[in-house]
């Protein structure tokens, strides 16, 4: 059942008004690139502006609260909050009979909050490991939600159609009043983070120490979780309960790659979230059959991927390059020291080097060539000798080796 819903959520969405005549594209990946004129649509197209604003707001709020969640290793909690919202949405509909988004969002938020509280209670009173408690709570609440949804769909209530949009989100239905709701919910969340920034920072880094200072750690924990619930509420209509976790985790994880300062990380996280929100909205609005929510999440994943590989401080590519460079440097230094020993005995030739290093003469020749290109050795009638630069470098290396044991500090 879920599968068919996934397909429907993706396909049934009508493309945003006014862009049905998008010309056919030849390149297979072209649907994912935006042109300048398409970017400008955000200022001229009213429907699209609402969708983009709503998605951007989600990106900002999810990014900021997600930063704390990721640092506190509570990424999974965000996933639980989001999934647990589904039964809340259904119950809110059953109890009130209305489809007003704010009512449903409040129901969803309350259910998420309840789930978080239950997880804490389970952790406090049972020996269930944290990940198990989170996983069980997530699937229980979500299962209950799906059951309620089916019940509603079979109860012949004419207005039920559309509740399932909260599973995968349906950003295209976002209108001005929704954006206003998001602004209020998200604004409250951001304001509170601003007020309690210093406390949240300490809470995330060292909760026991915060407690020892007399900060009400439990209250602050509850507050931060409640703010995460607000972020989830902003995201329910746009990306839905299943994909919401990505909007909490991915921006923060990407931002962490670029900076070592919490302030900067939170700012970047918000920026990445907003960028993903806007580009996801734009791409889906200007192409046929591309749903907004999943595209927002995909845009975010793309930003995360780029960050993981190319961020200057922690990017894998630079890491890899640095390791390679270091290895090469150490290898050459080792080589120079060998050459230095032979040079001191006046017998630095490819043959002696090969013998000392137990390598073929051809390799020794290449090695000497490498040293020569660095200007550390030069040719000589009797083979090779060290240049003054090479001598000095070898001397420095020997000095460094001599003090090495004292430079190693601590046991861990």
């Amino acid at each position: 059942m879920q599968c068919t819903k996934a397909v429907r959520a993706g396909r049934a969405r009508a493309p945003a008004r006014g862009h049905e005549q998008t010309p056919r594209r030849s390149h297979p990946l072209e649907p994912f690139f935006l042109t300048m004129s398409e970017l400008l649509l955000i200022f001229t197209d009213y429907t699209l502006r609402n969708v983009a604003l709503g998605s951007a707001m989600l990106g900002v709020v999810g990014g900021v609260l997600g930063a704390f969640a990721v640092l506190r290793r509570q990424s999974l909690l965000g996933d639980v909050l989001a999934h647990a919202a589904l039964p809340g949405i259904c119950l809110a509909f059953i109890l009130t009979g209305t489809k007003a988004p704010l009512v449903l969002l409040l129901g969803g938020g309350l259910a998420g909050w309840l789930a978080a509280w239950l997880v804490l209670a389970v952790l406090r009173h049972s020996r269930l490991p944290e990940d198990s408690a989170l996983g069980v709570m997530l699937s229980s609440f979500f299962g209950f939600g799906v059951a309620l949804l089916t019940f509603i769909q079979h109860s012949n209530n004419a207005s039920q159609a559309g509740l399932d949009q909260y599973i995968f989100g349906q950003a295209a239905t976002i209108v001005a009043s929704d954006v206003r709701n998001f602004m209020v919910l998200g604004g409250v969340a951001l304001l509170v983070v601003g007020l309690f920034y210093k406390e949240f920072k300490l809470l995330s880094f060292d909760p026991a120490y915060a407690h020892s200072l007399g900060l009400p750690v439990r209250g602050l924990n509850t507050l931060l979780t409640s703010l995460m619930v607000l972020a989830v509420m902003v995201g329910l209509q746009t990306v839905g309960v299943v994909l919401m976790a990505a909007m909490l985790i991915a921006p923060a994880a990407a931002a962490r790659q670029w900076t070592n300062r919490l302030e900067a990380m939170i700012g970047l996280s918000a920026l990445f979230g907003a960028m993903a929100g806007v580009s996801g909205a734009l791409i889906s609005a200007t192409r046929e059959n591309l749903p907004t929510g999943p595209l927002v999440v995909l845009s975010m994943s793309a930003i995360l991927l780029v960050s993981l590989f190319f961020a200057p401080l922690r990017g894998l590519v630079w890491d890899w390059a640095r390791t390679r460079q270091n290895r090469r440097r150490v290898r050459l230094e080792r080589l120079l020291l060998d050459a230095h020993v032979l040079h001191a005995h006046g017998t630095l030739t490819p043959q002696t080097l090969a013998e000392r290093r137990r390598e073929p003469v051809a390799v020794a020749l290449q090695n000497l060539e490498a040293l020569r290109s660095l200007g550390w050795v030069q040719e000589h009638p009797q083979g090779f000798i060290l240049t003054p630069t090479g001598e000095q470098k070898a001397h420095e290396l020997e000095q460094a080796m001599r003090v090495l044991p004292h430079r190693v500090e601590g046991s861990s």
Partner: protein
Amino acid sequence: MITQPRTVQNPESGASSPLRVRDLTVVYREKPALWDVDLEVPTGQLCAIVGPNGAGKSTLIKAVLGLVPVASGQVRFFGQSLAQARKRIGYVPQRGSVDWDFPTSVLDVVMMGLYGQLGWFKRPGPREREAALRCLEQVSMQAFTTRQISQLSGGQQQRVFLARALAQDADLYFMDEPFAGVDAVTEEAILRVLHELKKQGKTVVVVHHDLETVRDYFDHLTLLNVQVIASGPMEEVFTPENLKRTYGERMRWGERHSA
């Protein structure tokens, strides 16, 4: 948080012990981690808590600071309750208790020691920076102010935690294994700070694991193994019989160290 201003001090607080523990019992699951602990710490001394692994040394510190639930017992600081005396108490947790990859700088961590005094909604400013810098100087870490904390060695991390506690400007300090796995430079720095604190008349309670050094470093000793085995001045308590009773027969520390 705390409403009582620092200046209002009980006139007799000078006379009452910085830390008095009565009948403290802590139970984690079934087995008690601490059983009926009675402890009184003298003012202005360096006090060690020593015992085997699992003896409840860290638990004792956490329990008196209200960080773990207490089954029964009473704890008074300078004759006051924890809430009343909180601003006079500094804490150095175990270095391994936090994630050192957290995106923050050395100076930032030290300024956290001032968050309790700052109060709600206020951000640390130039005054707090100054104070934090002075504390970093005390542990010889002023050269690392802007360093990201993950780029520190274990010993340097320990000194940052110590500086953070110094920023609290407390009268009673609790330190959880500050000497564990640190380099010689750090060990020296910690000792220097301990003696400086003692000179200022402050009291320091340190969880320590090394019987080799405990007699040189501290004035007062508490031997703990779930219960308090012995507690008092170093010379009286550091005896082969007491050590044997704390560590069991298999440990032969007593013979080696009292000779």
